[in-house]
Every structure is written in C-alpha cells, then in structure tokens.
C-alpha cells in the first residue's frame, strides 16, 4: 500500500502534517498534538471560526481505508482544496494588511475563548479570491495563565515590519520578503528607521525595544539569559493589550505618499469607455464563454478590469498577476468591493517566484504551483519582449505553455507605448514584428480568431495550443 506523503512545506510542526492525496487535502494530528488539539476542539472555537469564514473548513475522516494511508495520524481531517496557493511575498500591501488583521482578530477572539496561537506565520493565511482565510488548525493551543505571546516576533517580522517598510519608508516588501522568506527582521528595520520615526510608543514597543533586547541578550554569555521557566509570565490583560494595540496601529497604515484616491480609483480603468477596450472586452467575453475555464490566469492584470470581464463571462476563478504595486492595490480593491473571485498577485514575469526554502521545495515556484485552463495576456508581451529583451519567440512559447487556450494581445512597434519604451534607448529589436509573432505562435498553437483593436496595430489572438 502506498502511504500518503506530506506536502513539502509541512514539516515544522510535530503535532501534524498536511497531505495532498489524489487531489484531496488531508491533515493528520499525531500523538504529540492530539491532546492539545482535542482540548481546543472541545471549546467549539474552531467551529465558530469556520462559520464566520475566518478558518478553512475541516471535516473528520473516519474511512478506515483512507486512515490506513496515514499511519502517523491519530486523527485525520479533510479540507477543501484551495484554487491557488499564494505567499506573502506575492501579496500587495493591502492584502498583507488584511491578512495581518485577520491574524490579530483570530488571536484576540481566541484569547477570549481560552485559546492561543502557537505561532504567527503569514504562510498560515491564504486568499480565497480577495478573502483571507486562516489555514493552520494545529496552531491553536489551550491558553495557560501567564503565557507569553510566543508569536510576537514572528508576527512583527512577517506582518508588521513589511507593512512599516512601505508605510514609513515607501519600500515594497515583496523582493525582500521573497529573499529572506521569513519576513523582515526587526533588527534590520530598526537600523533603517530614522530617529524621529522611532519616537512613537508603538514603534518603540514593537521594533526598537525588541531589537535592543535581542542585541543585549546576544552580547551576554551563553546560558546567562533567564530561561522561560524562571520568568514571571505575562498577565492576560497585557497579552490582549499587545494584540489590540497592534490591531489599532495596523488598521491605520497606508502606503507612504499615496492617497486613498489612487488605489480606490480602479473604476477609472473602465473597459467600456472607448472603442479599443470595448473590442477587447467583447473578444475576451467570447473566448471565456467558449472555453468555460475553472481557472484563468490574467498576466499583466492591471486594475483587474479584464479579469472582471472573464469572471462575468463564466470563468470560475481568476488569478491576476502584475508587477505594479498601485495596479495590484486597485485590483485587490475591485475584487473586495465587488466580491469577485479574483486573486491579484505580484509577479515579475521575467523573474517569477522560484521554488525555495528547505530543500528548495518548501515554497513552490510559479511554474510548478498550478496550471490554468485559460490565460489572458493583454498589453503584456511587449513588457517582456521590449522591456526585458526576451526574444519574441520565447515570450510566445512561455505564454502558450501556461494554458491550453488563451488570448494574447500583440502590440506593434508603432504603438505609442512601445515608442515611449524606446524613447531613451537604442532600438535593438529588428526582428520584433507582427509576422514574426504570428510565425512563433503558429509553431506552438493554432489561431482560432484574430482581431485588430487599434489603428496602431494592436491585435488580439485567441490561440489553441498544439498538445
């Protein structure tokens, strides 16, 4: 009999593991974790969280044949499978902020129910469309009097510090978070902040003082820092105070130098306000109605206008990708305001998220993570072909590899956007042309339909991959 194997990112917690088996998601609870988990389960708190949508649903598995596949499991649960797994370094500022608020809201409610979270990793939160949901059921433990908030440092490094980086210094967290995987260390943020920025009670409490205490402890000899067992403990009111203080602080954070009108103005990018966009929207609508995809990737999704068209035309879910922070914030607000099943994520297509972490498989890279049923690449290929010097043939081949069917918009060299891209550099793109694009596309796919949408030569191609 073949035993189920845990997913590669699930190895840290001895209390249990997550498995993917024949397309279904299971969670084991081991002998080590059982007593604690059953105590929490008996409080009814987890069921309450599931009802409010804050926690991923879970169902007990009692089928003996299935249980045999999980020898370590004293208890086994099944979860619904997520459409797309994403990581905090792919989230926009507001996604990370909402994830942080969810984490704190759960921790506050938990404390009132006599439960605590054993950690505070941002990887325990996933997005279903624009809604954050907590996914680690084994993070919950019974509260014990005097317990410290064990997840404080992790919360600061994976939520607070990346948010402060953008809110106080105007720097996006994505590249740094991806590089370090565990967030932005308090020691590093402390070094970056100016003196006046440090002069607030909250900044002192959650960045400056923890950084100093850590530095001081590191200077001491091994074994001289008082161990946990000899410490007085933290009163429950102080524990709760830390959580509510951070909640108040984070809910008021905004990207530095940007006003709410910037990210709230996604409706300005209306798809129906000119002929070009009307034609594009009609083309996308017809394509989606014909293909009926469960999952569509929208590369260069911008504010999500065409993602919305795809959803309205019947795509069950859309994952949109862009490298522009403001565009991502807009797309996220569009999805939230209109409750769209749209997940917008940061992606630099010339350097997509790699497989990384422990054994280079803890966090899955872009190309290994999921396959889409359809792909949209509108006003996108020239960012790779001209902006990043990727040969046009390679751009086409890569786009077609993402889904069996899709729509690619070709942007001609006469187009004002390409002219702007070439204004300050030499035109080395002698082979960039529509015939070359078409020849490259016909190598890997057949063209179902083609339509020119501007007088400058922008053309939509509906392709079907040669499989």
């Amino acid at each position, binding site marked *: 009999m073949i035993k189920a194997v845990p997913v590669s990112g699930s190895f840290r917690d001895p209390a249990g593991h997550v498995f993917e088996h024949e397309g279904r998601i299971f969670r084991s609870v081991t002998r080590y974790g059982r007593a604690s988990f059953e105590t929490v389960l008996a409080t009814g708190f987890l069921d309450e969280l599931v009802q409010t949508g804050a926690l991923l649903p879970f169902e007990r598995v009692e089928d003996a044949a299935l249980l045999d596949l999980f020898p370590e499991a004293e208890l086994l649960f099944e979860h619904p499978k997520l459409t797309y797994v994403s990581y905090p370094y792919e989230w926009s500022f507001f996604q990370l902020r909402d994830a942080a608020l969810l984490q704190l809201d759960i921790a506050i409610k938990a404390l009132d129910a006599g439960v605590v979270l054993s950690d505070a990793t941002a990887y325990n939160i996933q997005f279903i469309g624009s809604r954050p949901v907590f996914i680690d059921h084994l993070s919950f433990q019974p509260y014990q009097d005097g317990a410290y908030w064990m997840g404080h440092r992790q919360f600061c490094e994976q939520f607070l510090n990346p948010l402060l980086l953008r809110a106080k210094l105007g720097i996006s967290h994505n590249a740094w978070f991806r590089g370090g995987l565990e967030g932005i260390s308090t020691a590093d943020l402390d070094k970056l902040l100016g003196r006046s920025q440090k002069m607030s*009670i909250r900044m002192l409490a959650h960045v400056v*003082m923890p950084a100093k205490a850590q530095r001081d402890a590191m200077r001491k000899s091994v074994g001289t*820092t008082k161990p946990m067992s000899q410490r007085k403990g933290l009163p429950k009111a102080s524990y709760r105070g830390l959580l509510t203080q951070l909640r108040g602080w984070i809910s008021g954070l905004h990207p530095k130098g940007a006003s709410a009108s910037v990210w709230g103005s996604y409706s300005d990018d209306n798809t129906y306000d000119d002929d070009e966009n009307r034609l594009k929207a009609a083309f996308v609508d017809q394509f989606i109605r014909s293909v009926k995809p469960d999952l569509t990737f929208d590369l260069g999704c911008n504010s999500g206008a065409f993602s919305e068209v795809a959803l309205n035309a019947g795509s069950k879910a859309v994952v949109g990708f862009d490298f522009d922070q403001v565009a991502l914030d807009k797309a996220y607000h569009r999805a939230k305001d209109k409750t769209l099943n749209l997940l917008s994520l940061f992606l630099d297509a010339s350097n997509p998220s790699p497989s990384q972490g422990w054994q280079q498989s803890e966090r899955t890279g872009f190309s290994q993570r999921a396959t889409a049923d359809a792909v949209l690449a509108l006003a996108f290929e020239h960012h790779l072909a001209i902006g990043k010097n990727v040969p046009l043939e390679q751009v086409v081949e890569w786009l077609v590899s993402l889904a069996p069917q899709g729509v690619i918009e070709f942007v001609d060299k006469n187009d004002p956007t390409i002219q702007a891209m070439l204004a300050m550099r030499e035109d080395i793109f002698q082979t960039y042309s529509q015939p070359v694009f078409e020849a490259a596309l016909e190598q890997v796919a057949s063209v179902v339909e083609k339509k020119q949408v501007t007088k400058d030569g922008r053309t939509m191609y509906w392709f079907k991959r040669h499989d």
Partner: protein
Amino acid sequence: MVRVIFKGLASFCAIFGLAIAMAAPAYAYLDPGTGSIIIQSVIGGIAAASAFGAMYWSRFKEFLARIRGNSTSEDKADNE
C-alpha cells in the same frame, strides 16, 4: 623549577582559554524570539494600560455627549 613554571603557565592558559570560551557571546545559540519575550511584560503592560485608558476615555466622552444631548433636548423642550 622550569617545569613548575611551565605547568603553572599551561594551567593558566587552560583556565584563561576556558574563561574566554565560556564568555562566548550567545549569537547562534539564542532563540530569535528572546528579545521579544524579554520586553513583553513591559510593552504589554503599557499596551494594557493604554487600552484601559482608552476605554475610560471613550466612556467619559459618551458621558459628556449624553449630558450635552440631554441639555439640548431640555433646551428644545423649554423653547417649545
């Protein structure tokens, strides 16, 4: 004699060396969450106190609003 001095020197070096080894800074042996735990009692106390203060402040404001609200309605009643 030379032997004795040598022995003494050797044990001095050994003890001194041990002392240096024992005084080694914690660096990699220290859990990264240590700094946070050490100051939690202090920052938690401040956070709890400010939450407590905020609660009373909002109650005080509600109280003031109630007084004002009542006096306004009384004024209105008088005018009628």
